[in-house]
């Protein structure tokens, strides 16, 4: 074992920087009076510092390809996802601050937990070893369990935390057992070295069971059917700002690692594995969109839509092509911007005790707050996949990758289920513009959250019209 060098420390600077700032935030929270605002400031600075480090590591030839005995990937792929996670964290705390102030739950711990969860995501996004994948997932999930139960005196919040925790820990058990089996059959936990063992060990039944168990763990984290039971309950019960972060950041991190990890067994082009992934994708698209139809609560509707979107993205992994992987990465950017925007709007309008999140409340919003309604309409169009918004381009690439890898039936199923989803996304728009408002009390919009939501809106239009902004970046990293 060689000890680590300065260039490795420099290469992992995004993670180290964020860890440093989360410690500072924790201290500030303990030492300062009236600390929530200070911690918010520290978190914003920390995230921006980490973004700068990630951009620095993106294409720096002096840095090594991997760090800490091949535990972490450096540059390119890892940096791309680091920037994505950090931007999600930044947007989500900008949405959270006014929301938590309104709910009288504004404490510094919230930002510390968000920072720690983001560290977990950064580790997960750059992990090249099953050990670091496990650690990344756990750092992220443990913070999410706490965040889901953040409203500790509210029944729904602590209930969702318990459900998330029990099922999450259960899934971790499967993931770990899978890791143990793969270690047992290959003698290494490193993804780069496992590939070199192929094809001798691949057909060992224990090895295949190991991959199956890991798949269960990942399917749980990305919320794919049949491991989706926790999603609607947790998304509905958790504070809206947490849901915004969890549904975008958590999913993006899990997918970033899902792509790297499953590029290993997918390199064998095994029919059965492709089939299993295709069935997962198909099941998620059908069940997510089907149950989405009957929802009356906007948060729960977005939870089912999140299941459906996990299905679309798994198509990209099932295809096993770089095109599919690029499609997923683009889709994650689009999905993150869209969902942060949508949940941001929900959090601005939400009333006491989680009221005002039903469709009825949105009736007449087009007249009461035209700007906000137009933005929400844009987000819904983007989720449906209507051009010129970013969601359309993402779906296009994913379906194209399915067709290229001869999974045409999956692409057709994807298009049909998207048609179903149009109903419940557009229903929000129908309520906003074609129904009369029931109460006409003045809505006060917090400026910080509104600006963030506008930025999300600009983002989806920008990437929808000029997708090459991201695709040119991705050509160099996949």
């Amino acid at each position: 074992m060689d000890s680590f060098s300065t260039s490795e420390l420099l290469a992992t600077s995004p993670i180290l920087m964020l860890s440093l700032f989360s410690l500072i935030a924790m201290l500030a929270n303990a030492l300062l009076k009236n600390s929530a605002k200070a911690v918010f400031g520290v978190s914003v600075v920390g995230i921006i510092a980490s973004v700068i480090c990630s951009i620095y590591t993106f294409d720096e030839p002096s840095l090594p390809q991997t760090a800490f005995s091949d535990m972490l990937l450096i540059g390119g792929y890892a940096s791309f996802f680091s920037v994505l996670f950090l931007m999600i964290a930044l947007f989500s705390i900008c949405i959270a601050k006014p929301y938590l102030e309104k709910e009288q739950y504004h404490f510094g711990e919230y930002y510390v937990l968000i920072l720690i969860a983001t560290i977990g995501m950064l580790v997960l996004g750059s992990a090249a070893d099953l050990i670091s994948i496990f650690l990344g997932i756990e750092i992220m999930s443990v913070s999410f369990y706490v965040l889901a139960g953040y409203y500790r005196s509210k029944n729904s919040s602590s209930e969702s935390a318990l459900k998330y925790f029990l099922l999450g820990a259960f899934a971790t058990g499967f993931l770990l057992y899978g890791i143990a089996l793969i270690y047992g059959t290959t003698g290494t936990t490193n993804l780069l070295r496992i590939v070199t063992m192929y094809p001798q060990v691949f057909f060992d039944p224990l090895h295949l069971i190991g991959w199956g168990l890991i798949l269960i763990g990942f399917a749980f984290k990305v919320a794919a059917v049949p491991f989706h039971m926790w999603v609607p309950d947790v998304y509905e019960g958790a504070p809206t700002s947490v849901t915004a972060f969890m549904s975008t950041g958590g999913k993006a991190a899990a997918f970033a690692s899902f792509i790297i990890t499953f590029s290993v067994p997918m390199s064998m082009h095994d029919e059965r594995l492709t089939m299993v992934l295709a069935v997962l994708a198909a099941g998620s698209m059908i069940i997510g969109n089907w149950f989405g139809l009957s929802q009356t609560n906007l948060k729960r509707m977005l939870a089912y839509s999140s299941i459906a979107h996990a299905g679309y993205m798994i198509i990209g992994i099932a295809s096993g092509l770089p095109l599919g992987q690029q499609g997923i990465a683009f889709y994650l950017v689009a999905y993150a911007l869209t969902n942060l925007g949508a949940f941001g709007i929900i959090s601005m309008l939400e009333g006491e005790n989680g009221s005002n999140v039903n469709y009825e409340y949105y009736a007449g919003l087009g007249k009461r707050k035209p700007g906000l309604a137009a933005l929400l309409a844009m987000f819904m169009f983007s989720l449906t996949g209507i051009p010129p918004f970013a969601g359309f381009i993402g779906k296009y690439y994913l379906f194209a990758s399915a067709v290229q890898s001869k999974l045409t039936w999956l692409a057709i199923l994807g298009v049909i289920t998207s048609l179903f989803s149009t109903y419940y996304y557009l229903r929000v728009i129908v309520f906003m513009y074609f129904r009369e408002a029931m109460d006409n009390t003045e809505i006060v919009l917090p400026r910080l959250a509104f600006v963030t939501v506008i930025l999300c809106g600009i983002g989806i239009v920008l990437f929808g019209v000029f997708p090459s902004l991201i695709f040119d970046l991705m050509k160099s990293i996949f």
Partner: protein
Amino acid sequence: MFCCGVLGVVVRRNAIVIFMSIELMLNAVNLSLVAFSSFLGDSTGQMLVFFVMVVAAAEAAIGLAIIIALFRNKQTVYVDEINILKW
């Protein structure tokens, strides 16, 4: 042992017992990692066991805290009675 843990999670209705079953699953993993590690004569597995133990301890702390928070609100730890969020 892993199967016992899985069965425990599926069958039992008390949140604390479910949680214990999950710990059982993690310990099953530890045991098989150590076994593989000594079989292969490679120390990576034993290193991973330490990570698993640390994470399991952190998870236990968080999990029990969540269960206590819920118990304060609802006075029950039976998962069948924890059902405000449905459909």
